[in-house]
């Protein structure tokens, strides 16, 4: 069983009466020869790494290699515990956790690139917040990872997930699409609704540039992951209300690829444009490298 487009994937779901997770699990076992149990068990291990990264960010003092981020997750946690969050409990948690994972990443801690290290906060943020708020079982979370994986696979295959090729829309945009589909599946949405959520999430971040200050995976990457997580939840909420994406998933993936290809190189991970090229961005860059060379 294999699929190369979202349309193929939905046909397979319909023919077999399966969820996206079931189709993806079948594909993975056929392509790699690894048993279903082994794939699920390895995914559980992956989820454990995500969970530990969030816990590390909430409990340990972290300082990034470049010194541009550190301590944000704990600040957000403290505010959420003291008062009512502006964006609601689930979103506030997802954002806090997503930002925390970026702190762990930037301080040379252990993370899961999902799909990349620069976008590694989105899926853990959304997944842990939903599991805590809705009480999903670990098995349901593994199914959600399979659903997210199907979307990530399609975007990797048909477009790109590399910031150097497609900008941040390819990294955080893809992570958000993956998390949006997974959240929709967790909350009882159909396979069609899952791909609608993914298309909406990708479309909402279309054109987002990759412009890391000093070339480091720190800022604005950390808050972009926050936007990715909240965008995933918003897109799932829209799709779960029975609202589809005007542009179908496959066409949105192709649009993302084309937008990425037309971005100038200064906005594709070269630290030559956007936030990186602002006077403050340049000054920080100079400060980081001068202090290190001294």
């Amino acid at each position, binding site marked *: 069983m294999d699929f190369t487009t979202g349309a193929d994937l939905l046909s397979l779901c319909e023919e077999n009466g399966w969820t996206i997770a079931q189709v993806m699990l079948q594909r993975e076992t056929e392509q790699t020869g690894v048993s279903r149990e082994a794939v699920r068990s390895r995914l559980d291990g992956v989820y454990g790494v995500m969970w530990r990264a969030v816990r590390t960010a909430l409990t340990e003092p972290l300082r990034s290699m470049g010194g541009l981020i550190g301590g944000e997750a704990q600040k957000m946690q403290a505010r959420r515990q003291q008062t009512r969050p502006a964006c609601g409990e689930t979103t506030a948690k997802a954002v806090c956790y997503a930002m925390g994972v970026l702190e762990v990443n930037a301080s040379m801690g252990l993370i*899961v690139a999902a799909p990349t290290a620069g976008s590694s906060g989105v899926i853990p943020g959304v997944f842990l917040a939903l599991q805590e708020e809705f009480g999903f079982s670990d098995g349901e979370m593994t199914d959600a990872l399979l659903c997210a994986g199907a979307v990530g696979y399609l975007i990797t295959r048909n477009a790109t997930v590399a910031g150097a090729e497609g900008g941040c829309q390819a990294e955080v945009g893809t992570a958000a699409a993956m998390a949006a589909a997974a959240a929709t599946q967790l909350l009882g949405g159909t396979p069609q609704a899952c791909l609608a959520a993914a298309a909406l999430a990708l479309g909402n971040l279309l054109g987002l540039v990759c412009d890391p200050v000093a070339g480091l995976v720190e800022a604005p990457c950390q808050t972009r992951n926050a936007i990715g997580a909240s965008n995933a939840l918003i897109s799932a909420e829209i799709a779960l209300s029975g609202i589809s994406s005007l542009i179908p998933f496959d066409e949105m993936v192709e649009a993302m690829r084309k937008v990425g290809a037309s971005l100038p190189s200064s906005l594709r991970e070269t630290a030559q444009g956007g936030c990186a090229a602002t006077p403050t961005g340049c000054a920080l860059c100079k400060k980081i490298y001068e202090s290190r060379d001294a």
Partner: protein
Amino acid sequence: MKEISIFDVIGPTMIGPSSSHTAGALRIALLAGKLVRGRIVRADFTLYGSFAQTYKGHGTDRALVAGVLGFSTDDPRIRDSFSHAEQAGLAYSFTIGGLGRDLHPNTVDITLQSDTGQSVSVRGVSTGGGSCLIERIDGVAVSLSGDYNTLLIRQQDTPGVVAYITGVLSDYGINIAFMRMYRETKGQTAYTIIEVDGGLSDAIVPRIEGHPAIDSALLIQI
């Protein structure tokens, strides 16, 4: 090209901050370390392009040393690899090689020396998502990814060597996925890179090295 697995998309599990500048750099050094026998006592790195500009902020230097020490990309000791190198008696140095305009943006040259007196120089590039390619070994242009179990053979460029190698592989029932030969000048040193499906037994090494025109055979399995 391998099929995309879910673990390529939700993974790798790695020490941050960058799949290309941290995980990919480590993998280059890990592969380089497999090309010399004995304990590595000295590693000299020259960094080009984006590696040269941002290596400290991405921990590229620590990842390279960690790779020479044989750590995997998810090993928490990467952050402290300099002190682990000191304990292991590994000396290292970093040189900034400039922008390297003609090179891939994430390029590193590595020279390793082992306690047996062997040395090797390689050029590696980090190609994205934690993958990498060894592009040069001791001045000879090659292409080695480490994605498959690999047999690297250094030989004299004379007739009959390849027939001998494939004969040995056939004796061991090994299925070749890819096989390529590289040389600079006719009749001089050449490399044969054989990527196989399945595992490779250590027993194959002395058999292959039994041919007079073969200098060495190395198994690269990571």
